[in-house]
């Protein structure tokens, strides 16, 4: 009794909601990358308290489930006088959480950048900021490209949690449609297919990018 017509009729709504999945995970990834670079640098800082704070940050954001982080951002912050609109709460939570993972990915990659390069640049009198910007970060990004693409795919999947703050993305829309049509299996299979297409496209894009960076 698999009902194809249920899928066909509801596909436009699923696709509409998919835009929010892409928006939240995309912006979250952008924020996560920026924050992740900062955190990674802070984590490697020789100043003890800075690296301690960065380590604590990574531990907290990797340890506490994203759903809880989201709910705290959206429902707890107002009780201490900070009110954030839903989309920002979603993007910030995802981005802040992703930053913890990205920082660790970059840290692993930085270790693989030959130490001599940075030392050579320093010997040439390059400013530490320039060394990071020109030598360390670009190479770390390249080395960690496969892991970063994986992280982005993870984000696309965890973005389903942002429905908790009122954003109707793909998973939420699937739940709503199943609740109205009483055909959850058909709708969930359709949603799974959409997620799969997005993630395969991202994986393909990641591979192409990796090839291009392969100079």
């Amino acid at each position, binding site marked *: 009794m698999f009902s194809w017509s249920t899928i066909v009729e509801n596909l436009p709504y699923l696709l509409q909601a998919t835009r929010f999945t892409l928006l939240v995970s995309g912006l979250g990834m952008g924020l996560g990358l920026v924050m992740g670079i900062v955190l990674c640098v802070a984590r490697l800082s020789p100043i003890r308290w800075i690296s301690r704070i960065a380590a604590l940050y990574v531990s907290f954001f*990797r340890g506490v489930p*994203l759903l809880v982080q989201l709910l705290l951002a959206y*429902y707890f912050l107002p009780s201490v006088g900070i009110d954030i609109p839903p989309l920002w709460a979603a993007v910030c939570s995802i981005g802040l959480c992703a930053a913890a993972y990205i920082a660790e990915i970059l840290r692993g990659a930085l270790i693989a950048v030959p130490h001599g390069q940075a030392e050579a640049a320093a010997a040439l009198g390059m400013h530490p900021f320039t060394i990071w910007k020109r030598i360390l970060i670009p190479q770390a990004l390249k080395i960690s490209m496969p892991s970063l693409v994986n992280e982005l795919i993870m984000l696309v999947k965890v973005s389903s949690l942002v429905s908790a703050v009122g954003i109707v993305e793909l998973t939420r829309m699937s739940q709503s449609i199943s609740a109205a049509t009483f055909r959850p299996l058909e709708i969930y299979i359709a949603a799974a297919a959409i997620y*799969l297409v997005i*993630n395969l496209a991202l994986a393909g894009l990641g591979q192409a990018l990796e090839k291009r960076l392969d100079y």
Partner: protein
Amino acid sequence: MDIDLFVQYGPILLCGLLNTVLCWIVGAAGGVALGFVIAVAMYYGPRPLRYVLRGYIEVIRGTPFLIQLFILYYGGPNIGLRLDPVPAGILGLIIYGSPYYAEIFRAGLQAVPRGMIEAGRAMAMSEGTILRRITLPILMVSSVPPLTNFSIILTKETAILSIVTVPELLYQVQTMSAETFAYMEAMFALALFYWGFVEVISWAGRKLELKTNAFLSKELSA
């Protein structure tokens, strides 16, 4: 913050935590085992098998766990697969984790220097000895950090088991907040429990890393 709540709901929250830990341990161990088998099959197996496994990896990695579990649990009975909540949850975790673990092992296998294996052959080591004395030890060492990493990610996926009524931590926390309206306390309890849990796993992962490194240096120098 109402401390009495934690006293009153302490037993069911602890029960929930135990269920979370149990599902995670069995799910992660099963996922590692299945992932290892997949990686080995992809490395040594025939081409058609490799294509099938590649497809499995892409499909499972490309879809959210929530949807996989829903289809497994609520759709399973349509094809005669009727599982109770806890077995369904654990099987779901094993399936969800296996492609990630498989990729970790595959990368580890590829990273074993060919020269070392060739050296083993040159010294007339049997293939079994090469596997046991060279390939596996190196694989273990290089795989431990990413294995720990993914296992941490898997801890948080256990929260999704609540949709198939596995009485794990989130399920019990929802019971508490639905009965008492104490949403903030429930959130804080959840945050603290998970944070503690993940810290313990990270610590164990670091210990394991030191152990495997020590084992390797002993093996290779022996």
